[in-house]
């Protein structure tokens, strides 16, 4: 059986070519000239000028617009689809459904689970509100939607279950033939939890719930599909062009070589755009049926229904601690739902409980159930923020019980190896201790706590500070990745990379790596990326592994180009290549810098026109774990009359290895905190569980994202950079996901500090807080 830590974002145990040869790997950078600096993005101009063409911006000659009819019921069977009226409407070119010939290929659900489920593009057994039933291509999107509304569908409406806690009850409507539990309950244990609880001086047990969150990236999901004979080109808003190519080829039965996927720009994904969607295949079907390019961009409402979510989690955690702060036991259980299909409802929820702190006795039990709701997709650090919501509030509660500072309790239990993995392999670097110590210092943690605790507590507006930490299971990256560095005879460089830049600044970081190695200004470097037709194979940009995967391969390609360049220069300078160095477009003898030659003057390069350096991402160090760590701190002001929480300031101390670009690094940190504030304060998918089963808040008006008014202007990013020469040749670890992991718990712990109320459920809405405050007043 596959280990659960394997194969999530990259491939383990893969034999890969290595450049340079093992043993010749470039040494770790000591002093860097470019890497780590604050450098604006190489593609900033395109993004702020409006010239960047995102997939949803594309307009092709003769292009039609697609739209999808979706099942309005949480559970129903399609008895018949009448498309006759729709077909005749103005501007309509084609209407397809499960009963139009050749338009209903198979589809598989499997993300993040060991269970696969085969269904169809237009599935007649609709298991969630939003299941595709038919699709239209027309000359304008308005006409396409007119036609969608004219399609008559005969549904047999079935009883539904939209409440994960009721899914396994006797008599609950069955969503799948085998029942509503997805596979077996997953169990993990080490040590003896019972014994550990007996050894503890203090035992605390609490139940926690995190609400279902929706990704809602700013750019809608979708694509433009265009056939040229039997060659299909797709411009998709995606985190990974190669996974989309693979998905579409499989569904349509095409050779991979005939499917070209382009995704140079994309407007956010957060895990919901890692693969092809049904919409991708539907766009291709519509384009084939009409012999026209088809643009199929979902409506915002459809993205709420059908493009994934962070599953809701119901968690129970019992923990034991000794008076000196030694953790003795953690006993965790979780019930969660990835929706109507296998989609990883419980995926990784227990990981922080299992691996963040030293604890000899740990047990976890997780049950994933089906409900009649849209299938989950990985969302920024799948499982981890949910688990951290429970664990990090528990740590806070334990610290309070034994009268210890929450930072000190965590410092007491910092591991240097991964306890939850087989053989307890060591981390290549563990910055957790430094995150805690340096973060607390920079925040002024002790002083802030003392000051607040000395204050009178009579005012209805109270201040509090809170903190929490986290680790991310992945973030080390790994093979496969292939990079080409083309060095032209004028000294400029073209970098060819399959990976997407999902907004994290990947392109800029890679240009900086090339610049560091070849001494060429980043603006002299042109990057081609995210195009299966012209760029090299890469896995999707997800799992916070893009920089630690691609940057070492880019460095290897640049080093290889430099090797070839030095060979050419050496024959001109009549010396040995090993004695050469490169700066400012000139190659010179280290021992005698007067002996030099400009790149542009090397005859060999002029004749050849270009040097191509190929770099591969080599394997990771054996028996080592590469994980990022974090500790975050915040100060809040809580109005106990209105239930309003104002977050005054935030500080994130993140160990993500070497900082590659301080400017984009900070952007990822403030972005992660902001999304974490959403989880803590405002975001919750609400299903009408008792009456209709339908999604109640299907737009940004009713489902609230944090706005400019919900974040503190004072957000501090404090990079912790432990030297890590084992992680990879750039010393970098992932950043995007680790940031969001502790954030919600940080806010909850601060609210507890301010008010004495522990909030067990997200989101911490004013209404919910008012209720808790009033309950506390009654208790006296």
């Amino acid at each position, binding site marked *: 059986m596959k280990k659960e830590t394997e194969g999530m974002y990259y491939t383990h145990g893969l034999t890969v070519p290595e450049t340079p040869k093992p043993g010749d790997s470039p040494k770790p950078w000591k002093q860097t000239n470019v890497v780590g600096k604050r450098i604006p993005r190489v593609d900033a101009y395109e993004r702020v000028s409006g010239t960047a063409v995102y997939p949803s911006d594309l307009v092709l000659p003769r292009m039609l617009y697609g739209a999808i009819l979706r099942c309005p019921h949480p559970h129903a069977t399609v008895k018949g689809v009448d498309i006759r009226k729709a077909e005749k409407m103005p501007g309509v070119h084609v209407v397809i459904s499960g009963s139009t010939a050749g338009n209903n290929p198979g589809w598989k659900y499997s993300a993040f689970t060991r269970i696969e489920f085969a269904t169809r593009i237009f599935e007649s057994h609709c298991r969630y509100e939003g299941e595709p039933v038919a699709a239209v291509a027309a000359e304008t999107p308005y006409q396409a939607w007119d036609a969608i509304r004219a399609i008559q569908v005969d549904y047999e409406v079935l009883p539904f279950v939209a409440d994960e806690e009721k899914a396994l009850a006797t008599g609950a409507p069955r969503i799948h033939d085998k029942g509503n539990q997805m596979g077996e309950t997953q169990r993990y244990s080490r040590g003896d939890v019972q014994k550990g609880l007996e050894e503890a001086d203090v035992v605390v047990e609490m139940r926690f719930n995190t609400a279902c969150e929706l990704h809602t990236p700013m750019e809608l999901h979708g694509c433009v599909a265009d056939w040229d004979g039997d060659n299909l080109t797709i411009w998709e808003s995606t985190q990974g062009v190669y996974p989309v190519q693979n998905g579409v080829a499989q569904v349509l039965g095409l050779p991979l070589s005939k499917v070209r996927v382009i995704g140079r720009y994309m407007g956010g994904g957060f895990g919901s755009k890692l693969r092809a969607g049904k919409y991708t295949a539907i766009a291709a079907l519509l384009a084939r049926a009409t012999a026209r390019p088809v643009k199929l*961009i979902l409506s915002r409402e459809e993205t709420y229904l059908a493009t994934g979510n962070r599953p809701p989690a119901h968690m129970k955690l019992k923990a034991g601690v000794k008076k000196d702060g030694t953790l003795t036991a953690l006993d965790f259980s979780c019930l969660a739902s990835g929706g109507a299909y296998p989609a990883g409802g419980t995926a990784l929820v227990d990981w922080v409980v299992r691996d963040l702190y030293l604890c000899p006795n740990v047990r976890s039990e997780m049950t994933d159930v089906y409900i009649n709701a849209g299938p989950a997709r990985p969302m920024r650090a799948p499982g981890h923020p949910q688990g951290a919501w429970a664990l990090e509030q528990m740590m806070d509660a334990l610290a309070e019980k034994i009268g210890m500072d929450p930072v000190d309790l965590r410092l007491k239990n910092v591991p240097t190896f991964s306890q939850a993995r087989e053989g307890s392999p060591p981390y290549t670097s563990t910055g957790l201790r430094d995150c805690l110590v340096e973060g607390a210092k920079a925040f002024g943690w002790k002083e802030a706590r003392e000051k607040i605790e000395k204050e009178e507590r009579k005012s209805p507006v109270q201040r509090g500070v809170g903190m929490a930490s986290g680790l991310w299971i992945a973030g080390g990256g790994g093979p496969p990745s292939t990079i080409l560095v083309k060095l032209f005879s004028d000294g400029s460089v073209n970098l060819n990379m399959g990976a997407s830049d999902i907004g994290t600044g990947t392109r800029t970081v890679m240009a900086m790596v090339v610049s560091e190695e070849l001494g060429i200004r980043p603006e002299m470097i042109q990057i081609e990326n995210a195009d299966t037709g012209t760029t090299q194979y890469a896995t999707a940009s997800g799992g916070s592994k893009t920089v630690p995967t691609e940057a070492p391969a880019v460095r290897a390609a640049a080093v290889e180009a430099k090797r070839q360049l030095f060979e050419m220069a050496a024959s001109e300078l009549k010396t040995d290549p090993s004695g050469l160095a490169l700066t400012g477009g000139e190659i010179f003898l280290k021992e005698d810098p007067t002996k030099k030659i400009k790149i542009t003057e090397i005859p060999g390069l002029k004749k050849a026109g270009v040097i191509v350096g190929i770099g591969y991402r080599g394997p990771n160090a054996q028996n080592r774990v590469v994980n990022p760590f974090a500790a975050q701190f915040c100060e809040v002001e809580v109005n106990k009359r209105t239930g309003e929480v104002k977050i005054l300031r935030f500080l994130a101390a993140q160990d993500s290895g070497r900082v590659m670009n301080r400017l984009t690094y900070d952007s990822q940190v403030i972005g992660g905190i902001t999304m974490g504030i959403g989880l803590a304060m405002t975001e919750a998918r609400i299903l009408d569980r008792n009456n209709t089963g339908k999604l109640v808040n299907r737009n940004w008006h009713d489902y609230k994202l944090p706005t400019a008014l919900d974040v503190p202007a004072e957000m501090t990013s404090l990079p912790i950079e432990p030297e890590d020469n084992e992680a990879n040749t750039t010393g970098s670890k992932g950043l995007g996901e680790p940031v969001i992991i502790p954030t919600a718990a940080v806010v909850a712990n601060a609210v507890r500090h301010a008010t004495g109320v522990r909030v067990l459920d997200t989101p911490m809405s004013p209404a919910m807080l008012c209720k808790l405050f009033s309950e506390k007043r009654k208790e006296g």
Partner: protein
Amino acid sequence: MKRKPEDEDPKTVMTRRSFIKGVGVGAAAAAAASGSLSALAAAEAKEVKPEEMQRLTLRVNGRSHRLLVEPRWSLLFVLREKMGLSGTKMGCERGECGACTVLINGVSRYACMTLALEAEGDEITTVEGLMEGEELGPVQQAFVENDAFQCGYCTPGQIMAAEGLLRSNSPLTVTEIQKGMSGNLCRCGAYVHIFQAVEAAAKARSGK
């Protein structure tokens, strides 16, 4: 608002149009504050049928464009799909996210909540219109330098909102910037850098 009698031709869109007009203005906070409401309300509602393409002249970024449009087409749709001005982005088509923010007569407005026909005679500025030839405008430059975005999809809308805020000449404390920019969502969560960019652009502007 006028009510449509039941016996009238059901295809008449006058009522629907004036209704949408009201909603559209209400959704854009900046517009409500601008005093341009009265001008819109005074505009006479012309009776048009949904299937009749309408002749329309739009003033966009200082140029006039003659177009044939369906009455129901939004300004956003016409800018993006008919005029190739895809810098103005589509996020929700219901006035919630601000990705489609443009300036109408110097005031920031949601293009998804504005019918193309409504915008006739107005001076429309899109993100492309802030460019000085190939050079970025000062707000755009401030966004680059402060890395005030990640994926960049909400960015043209944020930039137009910031431009509108600066043109309103109101004093800009951080709180005022937060309020002024609160009609534009950013899912990547770049707000803090956006505040810094708007502050920098405001400084550059007052320094002129």
